[in-house]
């Protein structure tokens, strides 16, 4: 299981849109041919031979509401909407983005209630999307794709695709992209309401305008929102918001980290954890993601930050590695901090996501593995590996920041091209409760539904794309009985583009 193919690592690797404030990013590009047109041609040719690429073709129109075909029995106590976000449009007018992280965001809603499941999907109508839709072609370079004669990119929001995650906030949805502002949506119609200025009506209205608001905010049990935003300069802004999305506190720290990407973070009862992977940017390389290089001699650094003061209180070093995602962190009575990460031995997965956009799927990539870390109060660290491939870790949401016995992740058992499994790991015993969809499925993030806040109950739900029938299905598991398989499956008539992250909003 050491060497896996590209697509698996990809799915296993999710999003990371990186901040884009570096002046050299798209400058001095001397290509004599249009890379995005070449990319489109290569991908189209590959698609004929590789049906598993169906998930990254992209679409060019919304999905109208459709009632899904049910297999099994829909639980009566499961009502609400499962929202997912991801890049839905990768190509326009014969040109195709060069990296998976660049496509325009599309939000999907699976509404569950009255014994039925309905699906709809809509593009997030960012300024960029509206302009390019009207023009019928791309007008802006992406973080990695160089478009000849690109329109001005006056700030990261000029190319904000809002394509990474979606969270419910105060009756709205916020579609998230890690290099710029959140974008508000109507939670029922999915219509776009506009960019969110986190500092609106505060003294920070100007200073927070357009600042990155990462795609992985952490919500406490009472709805309190914590988040961060990373700039290429190494500065990181920290946000503390009320459950209604109102700013309560904000601070800027200088991490000194210039690796180009900090995708996710963690909170405990009293602290914020920022993990800085073993990356540096090669500024002579064109394109943000392309410029990010793994440095095997560079330890990962953990910044421990007080939630009260928003200041760094402690630093730890971990062995070199690369990470996108964490499940959860918590602290014990001795003030030791414990957390998990889906840890990669290097950053090949990031670079191979560009290969996939060309239709190349045979490139080996080193997958991630769940590792449990402990940051001891005496300054020492401990780690423990869990068997199997791991990505998209989730926990019961009401336990965010507090001790979790169970960790839920995707995995891969049979497939050499993508994640094909979902599992619950009992962290007390290392035992795994695993269900394998099989090679025919491309399995996406599964999230917990714990409206009763019962850490020994609830449901685990997620989507999977069935390659042979070219259809996507929503799958519902009993969270404590994953190996039993889905108790209900709801089928679309079609495949929808593979996405990144989502969340469930109970009715």
């Amino acid at each position, binding site marked *: 299981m050491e060497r896996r193919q590209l697509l698996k690592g990809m799915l296993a690797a999710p999003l990371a849109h990186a901040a884009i*404030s*570096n002046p*050299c990013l798209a400058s001095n590009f001397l290509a004599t041919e249009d890379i995005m047109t070449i990319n489109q041609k290569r991908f189209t040719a590959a698609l004929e031979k590789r049906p598993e690429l169906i998930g990254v073709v992209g679409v060019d129109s919304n999905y109208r509401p459709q009632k899904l075909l049910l297999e099994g029995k829909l639980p009566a106590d499961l009502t609400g909407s499962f929202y997912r976000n991801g890049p839905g449009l990768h190509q326009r007018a014969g040109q195709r983005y060069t990296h998976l992280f660049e496509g325009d965001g599309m939000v999907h809603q699976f509404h569950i209630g009255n014994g039925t499941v309905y699906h709809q999907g809509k593009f997030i109508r960012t300024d960029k999307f509206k302009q390019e839709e009207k023009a019928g072609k791309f007008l802006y370079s992406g973080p990695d794709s160089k478009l000849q004669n690109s329109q*001005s990119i006056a700030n990261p929001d000029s190319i904000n695709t809002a394509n990474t995650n979606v969270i419910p906030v105060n009756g709205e949805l916020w579609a998230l992209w890690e290099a710029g502002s959140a974008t508000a949506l109507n939670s029922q119609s999915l219509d776009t309401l506009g960019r969110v200025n986190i500092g609106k009506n505060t003294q920070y209205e*100007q*200073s927070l305008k357009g600042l990155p608001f990462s795609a992985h905010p952490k919500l406490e049990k009472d709805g309190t929102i914590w988040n961060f935003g990373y700039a290429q300069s190494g500065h990181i802004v920290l946000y503390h918001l009320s459950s209604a999305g109102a700013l309560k506190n904000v601070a*800027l720290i200088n991490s000194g980290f210039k690796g180009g990407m900090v995708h996710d973070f963690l909170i405990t009862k009293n602290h914020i954890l920022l993990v800085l992977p073993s990356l540096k940017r090669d500024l002579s390389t064109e394109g943000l993601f392309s410029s990010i290089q793994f440095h095997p001699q560079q330890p990962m650094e953990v910044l421990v930050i007080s939630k009260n003061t928003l200041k760094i209180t402690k630093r730890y070093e971990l062995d070199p590695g690369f990470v996108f995602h964490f499940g959860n962190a918590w602290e014990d009575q001795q003030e030791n901090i414990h957390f998990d990460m889906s840890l990669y031995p290097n950053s090949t997965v990031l670079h191979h996501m560009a290969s996939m956009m060309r239709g190349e799927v045979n490139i080996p990539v080193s997958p991630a593995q769940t590792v449990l870390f402990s940051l001891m109060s005496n300054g020492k660290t401990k780690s423990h590996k869990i068997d199997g491939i791991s990505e998209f870790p989730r926990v019961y949401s009401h336990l965010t920041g507090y001790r979790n016995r169970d960790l839920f992740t995707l995995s891969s058992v049979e497939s050499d091209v993508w994640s094909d499994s979902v599992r619950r790991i009992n962290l007390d015993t290392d035992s795994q409760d695993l269900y394998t969809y099989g090679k025919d499925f491309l399995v996406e993030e599964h999230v917990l539904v714990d409206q009763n806040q019962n850490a020994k109950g609830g449901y685990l739900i997620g989507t999977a794309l069935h390659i042979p029938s070219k259809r996507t299905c929503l799958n519902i598991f009993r969270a404590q009985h994953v190996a039993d398989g889905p108790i209900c499956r709801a089928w679309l008539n079609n495949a929808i583009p593979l996405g990144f992250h989502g969340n469930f909003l109970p009715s």
Partner: protein
Amino acid sequence: MKALLVTLSLLSTPIMANELELRIADINSSEGKIYIELFKGEQNYKEGQSYTASIIKAQKGQTTAHFSNLEAGEYVVRFFHDINNNAKLDSNLFGIPTEGVGFSNNATVQFGPPSYRDMVIAINSGRNIENTTIHY
């Protein structure tokens, strides 16, 4: 003496009678003002030594600024829309402008300000017209 003055006048006219008509498009609001700076030559631009500057009222859509008595030569023009009338270009905590900015030669911002070479224009004898856009 009179003949000398006439001669001097004729000689100096081509040097200082050059004009620039700067047309700025895509202004998103009539609130506030447009601050415009002209720099003559690369060295002055790098040192931030403006040749002349002007402040005009913002006008939604397009507006025009006039500069006269310019020496012929290479120039760079940069401008911003001070929409909230605080007499400065506002930026966020990461230093990214939060008000509209624009440049001569219709140079674009690509994750950072354009280079001198992207912005430079020539002011020639007589009337010069420069069409450019502002970006928010």
